[in-house]
């Protein structure tokens, strides 16, 4: 709906001349004409802005509903299997996308993955001046293998703790060196070297690798791997999060077992996921329907007649009328507890109906949601409207953007013209002021001359003429 445009109010013209009325009508007409195009622009801009806002709201609502439909489709496909751990303090299930129920046993968790961390045993007096190498050449050794190239500290100002830390970090060898200042004693500076990731890893530092090959004394701990058995198979992992041992399930080792302790990871059906999604579905459906209803009927908004509205409504009808391919059990949304109020079109979810479903009926519900021509297709239909890049609402938005650009161009032209007109009028006004002042001065002088003449010739000063005073807009008798 267009907002009320700002209007140009013509001035009320007060003049002496019998033509003053004509002047007034000229001013009013010119202002009205100027107002026409501006009102039109104002309405266009306002309408486009409103349409965009409405479309954005509908796009979001459609996108939300499409996501929920897609979630229901996925839950149907994987039978809403969710992963659980019998002891989450030892093993946690991060994600499960297993296609069928299953369980796995983990035992003998003897070690968690940890990060290697060392520091120099001996401190240094100064981080920027105390030499750390006898020759300026050092070597980083990880897991017994030398990292190439050697560390070169021969450059000016490099043979010190700060230079060594920078050089180690520049190797990008998977470790990070840091200078630590303990602040105590004569040699408070130490070099810390830590691995960037967990896993078993030894770190050594060698001075003069091409000569004396002196080991720099380091103290600390080598990293460790996670060590456990899955279904009786020994697994050693540098990380605690295991992503590939069970295809479709990711879990994290969080503690070690004692004795014969075992942890069971299960993927089992959880129908509450379905009911949660149905609750969400109902709310989103009603929100979207409300937005659509506002664009339909005698009190419809600016999107009245827009084909998107009809298309989305048709998609919603498709959802409500969808029937599963089976002959028994859950075949409609109504079977799951979805109810549509006849008089308002508002949908509701009766959780009692859902909770009363038997396990066998729940299985048919999974088939209902997983139907290849069902919720997945319906979700795709909605996404074809809501997709932020390829959706038809986004396409409509592109058109509006083009219209807005054209509108801006028109406005800029009008602004330029108005600015030019303003300057011209200002100059003319100044000239007119000057002209009027001069003319007034002359009229006063002429009046004085006539008064003088009358006095000289006839002994009185009445000129029997009137003088005009523009500022008061009235005439007065002279002398």
């Amino acid at each position, binding site marked *: 709906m267009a907002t009320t*445009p*700002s209007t*140009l*109010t013509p*001035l009320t*013209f007060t*003049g*002496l*001349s019998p*033509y*003053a009325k004509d*002047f007034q009508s000229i*001013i009013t007409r*010119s202002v009205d004409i*100027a107002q026409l195009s501006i009102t039109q*622009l*104002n309405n266009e*801009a*306002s309408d486009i802005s409103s349409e965009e806002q409405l479309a954005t709201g509908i*796009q*979001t609502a459609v996108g939300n509903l499409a996501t929920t439909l897609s979630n229901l489709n996925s839950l149907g496909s994987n039978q809403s299997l969710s992963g659980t751990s019998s002891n989450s303090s030892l093993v946690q299930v991060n994600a499960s996308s297993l296609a069928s129920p299953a369980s796995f046993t983990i035992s003998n968790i003897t070690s968690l993955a940890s990060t290697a961390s060392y520091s120099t045993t001996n401190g240094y007096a100064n981080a920027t001046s105390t030499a750390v190498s006898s020759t300026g050449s050092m070597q980083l050794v990880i897991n017994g293998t030398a990292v190439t190239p050697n560390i070169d500290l021969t450059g000016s100002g490099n043979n010190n703790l700060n230079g060594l830390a920078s050089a180690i970090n520049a190797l990008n060898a998977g470790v990070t060196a840091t200078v630590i200042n303990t602040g105590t004693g004569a040699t408070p500076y130490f070099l810390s070297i830590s691995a960037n990731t967990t896993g078993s890893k030894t770190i050594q530092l060698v001075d003069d690798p091409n000569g004396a090959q002196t080991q720099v004394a380091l103290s600390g701990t080598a990293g460790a791997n996670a060590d456990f058995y899955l279904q009786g198979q020994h697994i050693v992992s540098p990380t605690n999060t295991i992503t590939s041992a069970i295809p479709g399930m990711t879990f994290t080792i969080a503690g070690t077992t004692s004795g014969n302790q075992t942890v069971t990871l299960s993927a089992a059906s959880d129908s509450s996921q379905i009911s949660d999604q149905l609750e969400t579905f109902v709310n989103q459906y009603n929100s979207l329907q409300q937005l659509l209803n506002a664009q339909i009927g005698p009190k419809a908004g600016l999107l009245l007649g827009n084909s998107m509205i009809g298309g989305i409504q048709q998609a919603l009808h498709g959802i409500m009328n969808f029937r599963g391919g089976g002959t028994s059990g859950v075949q409609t949304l109504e079977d799951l507890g979805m109810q549509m109020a006849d008089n308002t079109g508002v949908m509701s979810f009766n959780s009692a109906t859902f909770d009363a479903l038997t396990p066998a009926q729940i299985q048919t519900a999974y088939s209902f949601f997983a139907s290849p021509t069902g919720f997945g297709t319906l979700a795709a239909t909605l996404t074809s409207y809501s997709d*932020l*890049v390829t959706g038809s609402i*986004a396409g409509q938005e592109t058109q509006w953007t083009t219209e807005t650009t054209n*509108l*801006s161009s028109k*406005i800029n032209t*009008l*602004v330029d013209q*108005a600015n030019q*007109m*303003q300057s011209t*009028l200002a100059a003319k*006004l100044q000239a*007119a*002021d000057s*002209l*009027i002042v001069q*003319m007034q*001065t*002359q*009229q006063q*002088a*002429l*009046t*004085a*001359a*006539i008064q*003088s*003449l009358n006095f*000289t*010739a006839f002994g009185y000063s009445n*000129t*029997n*003429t*009137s*003088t*005009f005073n*523009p500022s008061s807009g009235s*005439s007065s008798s002279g002398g």
Partner: protein
Amino acid sequence: MQELVQSLVHTTAFLGRAAQDEPDAVERALAERGRAIEAIQRLIAAEASAGRAISEAFAGELTTALEKGRQILVRLTLARELMRSDRLAVERELQVLNGIRRLCAKPSGSLSLHG
């Protein structure tokens, strides 16, 4: 004397005809008219000092020139008012246009539909 009156009548008539789009010509006519009025003032003063009467025809022509000047002044003032109102209208147009321009500009926090 007659020349002065003719100059006054002539320049006043020109000002009555001249459009404001001819500022130089109007300026020249104003200057000439001003000089004619000053000369007439001096002439009247001189005649008064000499104790001579001035013809009624001369007085009548001066009065006519004064009346025409008054009409010109009315017209100039009307034209000025028209320009002033035009300028106000243009300024309002600019305000409205700038308002629409702000409406067209998308707020930075708005949701982009293009990813």
